[in-house]
């Protein structure tokens, strides 16, 4: 146990102010994100992720948003196991025919405001898989989408940015 404690102390805090992503303005987004979540979502934004047929690269990047560098949880954002607990749905993949029904049901099970962020080129337009017999259509053709984050796969910083735009958009509309 001593070894482990020593390791944790040696490692220190790795969380970055997301400025290392070289995209100007993201640090401000971090602060702003926290403020909006505190005000509008009772300090915690619950996100449910549905993979609607992705190649799993988008899942790798969504998982990376919770690593110590990006540390998404510090803004009050966490991933939940049930759509019934979720404020926001992240959807990846080109929406295969075999997943369209499950995606629709997950969306229906969510309470309002039902924010939806489509992650990746596939979710945007089918990506390299469009025009396949096995693809139902992009996410927007199945459920209403608030924000799309393009990329194959989009980086963790872009995903965080997408989440921020979605809650802000919703904020300005109401």
């Amino acid at each position, binding site marked *: 146990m001593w070894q482990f404690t020593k390791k944790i102390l040696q490692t220190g805090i790795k969380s970055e102010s997301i400025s290392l992503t070289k995209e100007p303005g993201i640090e401000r987004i971090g602060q702003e994100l926290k403020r909006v979540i505190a005000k509008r979502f009772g300090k915690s934004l619950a996100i449910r992720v549905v993979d609607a*047929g992705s190649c799993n*690269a988008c899942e790798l990047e969504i998982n990376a948003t919770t*690593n110590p560098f990006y540390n998404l949880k510090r803004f009050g954002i966490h991933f939940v196991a049930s759509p019934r607990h979720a404020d926001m749905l992240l959807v990846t993949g080109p929406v295969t025919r075999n997943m369209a029904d*499950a995606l629709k049901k997950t969306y229906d099970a969510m309470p309002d405001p039902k924010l939806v962020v489509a992650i990746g080129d596939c979710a945007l337009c089918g990506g390299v898989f469009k025009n*396949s*017999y096995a*693809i139902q259509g992009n996410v927007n053709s199945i459920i209403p989408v608030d924000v799309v984050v393009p990329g*194959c796969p989009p*980086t963790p910083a872009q995903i965080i940015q997408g989440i921020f735009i979605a809650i802000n958009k919703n904020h300005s509309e109401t």
Partner: protein
Amino acid sequence: MQRECLKLLKNHMQSPGHHCLEVDSQIQADIAHYLKTHGAVLLTEWITPKDWYVLYLQNKALICIQSKLHPTRPALTDLSHDFPVTNRLQRAIYDLTKIPTQHAQDKRPWLNHGYFPTGVLNAHARSQRSCQQSYPFNKVAGDGVHEIPVGPVHAGVIEPGHFRFSVVGERILKLEERFGYTHKGIHQLLLNQDIQQGAKLISRVSGDSTVAYAYAYALACEDALNHSINPQTQIMRTVLLERERLINHIGDMAAIVNDAGMPSLQSQFSILKETLVRDNQQLTGHRYMMDAIMPCQNIPLWNSDTITTVLWTLNKIQKQLHELKQICDHHHGLQDRLKTTGGLSIETAKQLGVIGFTARASGLKLDMRQGNTHYPYSALNITALTESNGDVAARMNLRFKECHQSIDVIHRLFDMVDQASTTNEPHATTTDFPFGVGIVESWRGPVCVAVALEHDQIQWCHFHDPSWQNWLALEYAVIGNIVADFPLINKSFNLSYSGQDS
């Protein structure tokens, strides 16, 4: 089995290299049985408009058994008695081509959930109707047995698939998997594509093994075109492949310790993973090295400063992994969760025809990187690392070992690269296959790609993910474990849903 056929088969089994044997489809089952009793594993099977191919790995020989399909009433013979994975492969083949398997016990659909017509890939046999949407699971009866259905949408950030547990109290009596949710019809999308466009598609069969797929596809295309690629590029491709192995093993160890209730230890592993992933962005322009390997294209050598930095980072990571191993080994709570959980015995692994690192964790010395293989592995003389217990702890330990092995391999590759020539040497033909083949040991196991080209266009292309075989192993590894340990066991395998569905 006819005598000449057996004689030929015996010859093939004794000499390393690629061999093709054409037989009547009726005796495929006999051959499968013969090969199974002689320790072969089935790598993949697939059909083309005219032929049925089954690819086996027997010791150092790669044996392809080819059968002509009957022009009007094509049918396969059932191999699932010897190689259980073919049950799923045959059902998938029926879903996409409507070509049935004779005497098959299990005729339920696999990839087709009733949302697209059966036989979409077969213009002659395409039916207007799709299959039934309801799917009969195998029932377990008895006092106190109940079912837990899980999925397709899972609780974590993972891919979709359905698990049907039959349990008594906490213990799992039986797990039945049902997949196909991420079926994207990639086999059809690949038809008539040019080689480069095909590479983009095949790199996205399973995102976590993108380098392995691109590499296997490049080898297959170059084999089909008889195109030679310079040794330096071959070395650089292998460096990328080993980096992918390292990243995924570290990422999986992070997930395993997290599922065992240690998020702070998960953070330690994630730091290492993110460090490597960011380096990938610098080195290849993509965090997961997507589209870095293209068929018939050379990869330029990194300059010496970059190589020094890369090796320095790897050394640092190696040191950290040693520390983390110490912490894991001395944490009794963690070891208590990992040891004896999700055990897969060597006998079961053999019986199921398990491949890749899952097989090695159960004690089978199966690694496509060892022995008579493609350059540069042929020059590296790699021996397969194994563990004996086959439980979650064994798979965790093997990952540690393979991380160190990968770092060591990358060091040796950079030592070799100085002498490696940049001129394209003539292609050494070792194959008598009527198509191009590429097999690469991804972090998960062998990824196979077979391709037939016509004027630089893909006539047909088949790819196979090791997850096909190893998903079967998961069904057996969970028996007798408690339901609460399922996520941990599942993570220790970390198989690809997309890879098996595509």
